[in-house]
């Protein structure tokens, strides 16, 4: 759980990323870390706004609907 008490709902699907940086460029929170071949979302900063999901050209990022607490 991050500082904002939000559950991270954005998922980076494994083995699909091309490390192009579209998601980083549109992220309003600077919550995405991109190295040469490594991508990470910072759960403390991400607000689940999904702009990165819409801007990914190759469907690497996914918004997972929150599951109801059982």
């Amino acid at each position: 759980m991050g500082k904002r008490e939000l559950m991270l709902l954005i998922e980076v699907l494994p083995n699909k990323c091309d490390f192009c940086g579209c998601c980083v460029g549109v992220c309003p929170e600077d919550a995405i870390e991109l190295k040469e071949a490594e991508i990470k979302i910072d759960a403390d900063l991400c607000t689940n706004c999904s702009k990165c999901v819409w801007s990914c050209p190759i469907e690497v990022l996914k918004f997972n609907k929150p599951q109801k607490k059982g």
Partner: protein
Amino acid sequence: MKKEYDVIVVGGGPAGSMAARFAAEQGVSVLMLEKDRDIGYPVRCGEAVSKAGIEEFIEPNEAFISATIDKFGMIAPDGTEVVLPLEQIGYMLERRVFDYELAKQASSRGVEILTRAYVNGLLFENEKVSGVKYEYKGEQHELKCKVLIAADGVESRVGRWAGIKTHIDFREMESCVQYTVSNIDVDPNTLLFYFGKDVAPEGYFWIFPKRNRSANIGLGVSGEIGKKKSAQTYLNTFMDKHYPDAPILTQIAGGVPSSITLEKISAPGIILVGDAARQVNPLSGGGIVSGMIGGKIGGTVVGEAIKKNDLNHILTYDKAWHDRLGKRHEIFERLKNGIYNFSDEKFNSIAHAFSKVPFEKRTLENIFKTALINKPSLLIDIAKVFIIK
């Protein structure tokens, strides 16, 4: 490596190399850091440029020129194809060689270069940027500089850390995919642009020829379109229909920040150049030459500032950029907004009208005029970009 540099450049693309070169030409010490292992690779680009554009920086050479372009082809949604001669010759580049040559050119002016150096933070002194934190082969380092030049591309994080608002609205990010394919029949001298909601809504789909029957084939879509359908899905549909068996040599993804320049591209101790500053031509999506121009202006201003020991001089970079290209990009932005939301019927009717014009009388200016005949304010913009050069 030195313990401290006058200038550190973050990013080894064309804008970074030119910023480094022109700063070094002022006689200051420059280090360029690149996060990837290679300069120039992976390539994330359609690779088309104007001849005049690159000649300002480097003599054209076969090693990095894959094709010479003298025609522009528009394919309307109904398949009508209109080809017109270009007044200005263009080139298709081999970016992986081109970027290397630019970096070598910078190094010949004394620029030091380090790849695999990932910048992940900034140093500050009295609220002025004073250096970088970077990771190199698993170890964390710090390095001071008088001025930092952020050429870190579409991500543009370095500027954010310095307090400049760099993130781009998702509707203005053109998220692209491109295949380089071989063994296909394409005219080796024509850039082809496909329009229409089925192939590339609110943008264009491209086939740009490269040597030996190969070509870059791709498209970009804005985040607004991407909500419903990704660029990859559009490309798959096109390839299945037109080139189902074409050998694919390269697949890449990449983002084009398709907007006007950032409101602010300098701050105490730092300037931004290239895609990081949003110096892309928003109409064409071309960012190589404009980024190199940004790098040249920025690098020169930074070099001068250090030489005359007046670091406030770097703040004149904003105006110098706007006078050279920034204002022009505002016109291109208006044209983009006037054109890319056309209906398929409108694109068809433009192609039909234009196909009646004799080949030698076809010009890009005329096709824009045909397209925007009902938008007088944009006709003035066309006059500004085509007549007042």
